[in-house]
């Protein structure tokens, strides 16, 4: 009963139209960034290597290689500052956390392509 009430409060700030995406997908994350009074949208593209937490606390990690340096960003799934998430390409992943990609360089970083419904539409 208590968890039900707590969920009902937390779920109110859910972003309802989050698209389906999976571990190993390449996604575009559209982030709202405030600089003083100006607002702009920054796009971060990379591979989803982890999803953690549940309910309002869910977070996902996106990894990309920029200038030969691995960059990881962790986004809250339901944050209003994450304007949009666009899955572009599905990758073949056999585990829930792809931390092994951190040890790889060059071509080995790329996951082999997998056809799936949620990315083939794009």
């Amino acid at each position, binding site marked *: 009963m208590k968890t039900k009430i*707590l969920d009902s409060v937390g779920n109110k700030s859910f972003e309802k139209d989050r698209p389906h995406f999976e571990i190993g997908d390449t996604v575009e994350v559209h982030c709202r960034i405030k600089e003083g009074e100006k607002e702009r949208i920054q796009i971060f593209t990379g591979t989803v290597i982890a999803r953690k937490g549940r309910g309002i606390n869910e977070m996902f990690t996106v990894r990309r290689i920029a200038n030969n340096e691995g960059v990881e960003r962790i986004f809250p799934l339901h944050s*209003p500052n994450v304007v949009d998430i666009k899955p572009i390409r599905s990758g073949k992943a056999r585990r829930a956390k792809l931390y092994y990609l951190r040890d790889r360089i060059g071509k080995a970083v790329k996951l082999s392509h997998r056809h799936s419904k949620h990315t083939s539409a794009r």
Partner: protein
Amino acid sequence: MVMLLGKKVGMTQVYNEAGDLLPVTVVQAGPCVVTQVKTIDADGYNAVQLGFEDIKPSRVKKPQENHAKKAKTTPKKFVKEMRLSEKIESEYKLGDTITVSAFAENKFVDVTGTSKGKGYAGVMKRHGFGGFPASHGCERKHRAPGSISSYASDAGHGGNLKKGKKMSGQMGNCRITAKNHKLVSIDEENNLLVIKGSVPGSADGYVVVRTAKSHL
């Protein structure tokens, strides 16, 4: 001033308009019934007695039953008085119910509850003392308070401790008021108050929610 009796449900997180994630406590508050109205003429002061949550019928005692009968309600488990100023006559009448919507114009609240009991705690846990080194020849006094007084400390009278000296003892399980907490939102349908930050006591503990004293 508005006051409501309630029960702490637990903590969760909520996003605000700016996109910040706020830690919030959910309190199931009210509906409370006015079980008695006290006036200066009859009782010497102005107050309203509120009741929250029914007592199991088999555990009700006769005086409780008759007291509740005057307000035409059932006997209540958690009963507290809301003190009113001497000048203003009470706007509440016997048997009225107060719900969460009474807080509609309030932005900040004080929450009173009974804190979680920690038992007989030492001085490091209870008052944050530094203790003594683990090694370097330190023996049998790693968590000790150190010197608590001296013969000279009481200016000639000698041998007395300073009053209020921080020492070990019972920690927690006492009445605590958390002041000036922002009221994030109100759920009138489910009688919920969503309060920013933490609130004294464990989940299911009784709490009193009031308009913040410094925002009256």
